[in-house]
């Protein structure tokens, strides 16, 4: 319950934060909302020498429309996303997923950027970020970088973010209402056993499917997407496609769900999410 001692730095600007990160290297951890880091600190699973708190940096918490896309600041809380009228109108998948993250108290403090960078394989956001084909904007000593969601999640707790980079913004496209997130919750922790986020583009006759909780990292269910491309979203087509939701995936097994059950839930929740999203088209 008591973290090991650490030094605390509170930069005022992103530039300053990047410099501190370069200076302290691997011995430092960035603190955003703290809802992934602080639990690890309390258990002493994480014992960084230095904690760099980016919570006071101006203008990292926002949701705004820019050039036909929605930009969400990395420090935007889950709660702000849940409550955003702009997102409800222009990218309703984000508020829908936000409602599944943790609990009210966690949503009030935890941030989108913090969650993505932590890359917990059972967190909710990666499913949505993948399904939306979002872009992740980082800043580092060499300046900004834009990373596509599909290459952002590398492995268990591992992202494409370099050690000296800070995630600054998440950009998502404007979508129709035909989106959905269906999650089977690990009831003790609130994380996903299988969470499936779906975006249906009715006009283009394509779907995109992001799945979290099932494997060591969140993934795009490309086999599902390919099968449905150009097809009408009939119940039969959806069922046939959803059956591929765990293809070529190595599902995790633990005391809460075996690998087999996880794969089943991936397929089932994919079918259900597609059905819900299609009904919203």
């Amino acid at each position, binding site marked *: *319950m*008591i973290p*090991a*001692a650490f030094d605390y730095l509170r930069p005022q600007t992103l530039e300053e934060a990047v410099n501190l990160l370069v200076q302290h290297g691997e011995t430092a951890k960035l603190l955003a909302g703290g809802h992934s880091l602080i639990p690890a600190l309390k*258990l*002493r699973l994480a014992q960084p020498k230095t904690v760099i708190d980016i919570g006071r940096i101006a203008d990292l918490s926002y949701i705004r429309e820019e050039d036909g896309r929605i930009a969400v600041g990395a420090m935007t809380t889950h709660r702000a996303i849940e409550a955003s009228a702009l997102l409800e109108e222009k990218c309703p998948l984000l508020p829908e997923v936000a409602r599944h993250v943790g609990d009210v108290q966690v949503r009030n403090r935890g941030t989108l950027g913090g969650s993505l960078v932590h890359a917990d394989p059972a967190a909710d956001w990666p499913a949505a970020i993948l399904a939306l084909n979002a872009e992740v904007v980082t800043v580092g000593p060499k300046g900004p970088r834009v990373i596509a969601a599909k290459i952002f999640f590398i492995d268990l707790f591992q992202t494409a973010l370099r050690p000296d980079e800070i995630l600054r913004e998440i950009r998502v496209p404007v979508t129709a209402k035909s989106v959905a997130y269906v999650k*089977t919750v690990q*009831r*003790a*922790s609130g994380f996903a056993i299988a969470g499936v986020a779906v975006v249906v583009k009715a006009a283009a006759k394509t779907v995109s499917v992001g799945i979290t909780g099932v494997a060591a990292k969140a993934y795009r269910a490309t086999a599902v997407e390919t099968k449905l491309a150009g097809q009408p979203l009939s119940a039969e087509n959806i069922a046939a496609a959803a059956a591929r939701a765990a293809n070529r995936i190595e599902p995790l097994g633990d*005391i*809460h*769900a*075996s690998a087999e*059950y996880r794969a*089943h*839930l991936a397929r*089932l929740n994919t079918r259900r999410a597609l059905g819900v999203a299609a009904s919203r088209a």
Partner: protein
Amino acid sequence: MKSAKSNGYIGQAIKRVEDPRLMQGRATFVDDLRLPGMLHAAVLRSPHAHATILGLKTEAAKALPGVTDVFTGAEINQACGLVPCSASMPDLKAPKHTVLAGDRVYFVGHPVAIVVAASPSIARDALDLIEVDYDPLPAVANPEKALEKESPLTHPDHGTNVAFTWLLANGDVDGLFAQADRVIKQRIVHQRLTPMAIEPRGCVASFHAGEGSLTLWTSTQIPHLVRTLLPGMIGVAENKLRIVTPEVGGGFGSKLNLYVEEAMCSHLAMRLGAPVKWIEGRRENAMATIHGRDQIGEYELAVKNDGTVLAIKARTIADLGSYLQLLTPTIPTLTGLMISGCYKLKAVRFELTGVYTNKMATDAYRGAGRPEATYALERLMDLAAAELGLDPVKMRLKNFPKPGEFPFHTVTGLAYDSGNYQRALKKAQDLASWDALLEQRDAARQAGRLFGIGLSTYVEICGLGPSKIMAAGGWEWGCVRIEISGKVTAITGTTPHGQGQETSFAQIVGDRLGVPMDDIVVLRGDTASAHFGRDTYGSRATVLGGTALLMSVDKIIAKAKILAGALLGASAKKIDFRGGKFWVKGKPKNALDWKRLAQEAYVAKNLPANFEPGLEASSFFEPKNCTYPFGTHIVAAEVERETGDVTIVKYVAVDDCGPQVNPLLVEGQLQGGIAHSLGQVLFERTVYDGDGQLLTGEFTDYSMPRARDIPEYVIGSTVTPSPSNPLGIKGVGEAGTIGANPAIANAVMDALAPLGIRHVDLPLLPEKLWRAIEEKTAELRKKKPRSQS
């Protein structure tokens, strides 16, 4: 809601007097105590399920600034003595339970060293500096494997993992099984559970060197038993020991124990000359506070084709964990005592084997042995009804004793003092709209849904208990004092920790004395004021503690009548008493109240001859029998075919706990108890892997009910007073837990019955149900390939 101003308190849903302080953050839990010069302890625990300690280096920890000292088993075990266990089976093999491990650890969480430091954070930092060289040994976590010949031994010097055997046998079991038309067999598993009170344990010990007296504040259900037992460990005389339980944040049996940390902090407070505080973390709580249940039984029920049950047999293994806490071996014997339930069985044979494994000790957890009995029996009743093609309700009714048959002597040797099982069952059916519920099930099944109805008819053994059946006294004590001002102080030997007896006891006392509740204070949980007590567990506090207070009130009233008579010029026999006033029969206008009598009693100028000053009385209540609350729970549940998720559609509970002192509190106890069973049936379980590692060591992995899991309840009651105490009350703390378990499980199994699924072991996790459904659906598909649409 009635106002607390009027008299006639018993039976009223009065809001609790405890609440204002608890709701405003003004209550004092152990962790809220701050004593001058207080030091903070932290305990280093084994990460191994079984290992030899080859070396222990504490120098670096001792050198950390702010660390007072670090102690290992070699430095403290001699001074602290062994942790007591109350059980006394003749063949019981008990390991020496020292406060810290010696040269061997035998469960994950086994305390290895204790640090004392100036602050909690320094104490925590110091733990990381202690080096322990463990040589891992083979461990056994499965009690059935522990009985196999080649199993690793939890205690090698015992030469076996068997801790004890126990047999309850009565009647011609073999003869009745031979006469049976059918024998219903089922293996019944009660998974291990972790009580998880939201407040972990904790204690503060302070030694007064001048007086040689020690005060221990501890989050316990049993300060009086701690005061009885602790002297044997730390060498402070009982009369130099004061145990205080401030607010206790939930117990459920897990705080019905004397734990090593209480002894160590007490010892160290003396040794170091400063108060020592220890507060348990959640992970420590999960691994080193007792667990509950963990029984596996092979059950057999002998029945006739008409539904008459004849006899029951069980061969049961109880996983005790690696050592014995206070009641560890006793708990599973309660399963045996209650295994005949509400039914007129003619014979029983309950064979119990207690087994050691490399896990935390089990002990009393809400219901403590009785939910195990009720669940096993009520599952068997449903299985029997299904096999015989009988209505489960009629089958139960057929085997109940009739209301006129009480006291009913069970085949297990108990005498149920009162009961009317038929009435509770009928009432529950009425509240559940039984016929409509059956129609709802038919309609759901026709639509292809998995919808089931389950019931349990249960009886508990509560109000524990007569001293003859208890290890250290089953009486209870209470004291009532009319103060000089006329205010009333009631002191109970029970130790409420959420049950609300500051309120219900004030109701009992206020009612009888005719004094407003606002003028009554109920003291509890401090051995300096509550001189005697046997504390709170086994749904006993209101039954026994309430009666002890009532007896004291009656003594005071009798005494006050003498005084009133003297003051009014009449004999005590001529004095009437009602509503807090005393008057000579026929002259109510000239009445004396408590205030006046108290002044006279203590100022003591006008006392009659041979009349002792004061208005105080204390009483020990020794019950002649336990109480036997009973009831019926009816549950409707639906299982989602594709996921195995269970939804509780309807929940009806009818409990007969006798007359209710405060129906609001009764309802709270029932709802809370049901939630524990809902957890056990649907998802709670303590998981150790095959090597004895605890995998449910935090709330991240131990699933407990949250608000979203709770159905809306329909709660009713019947009132069959117990003849065993003057109030007729029976206790309600465990009723929900005992009644709910089989009702929920039976409902889920009924939902799956059309698929041919007979039984699934608890907890009924979605994955298990999904697998069972998939398997049976595949079989059905094979049998009639065309019927599937």
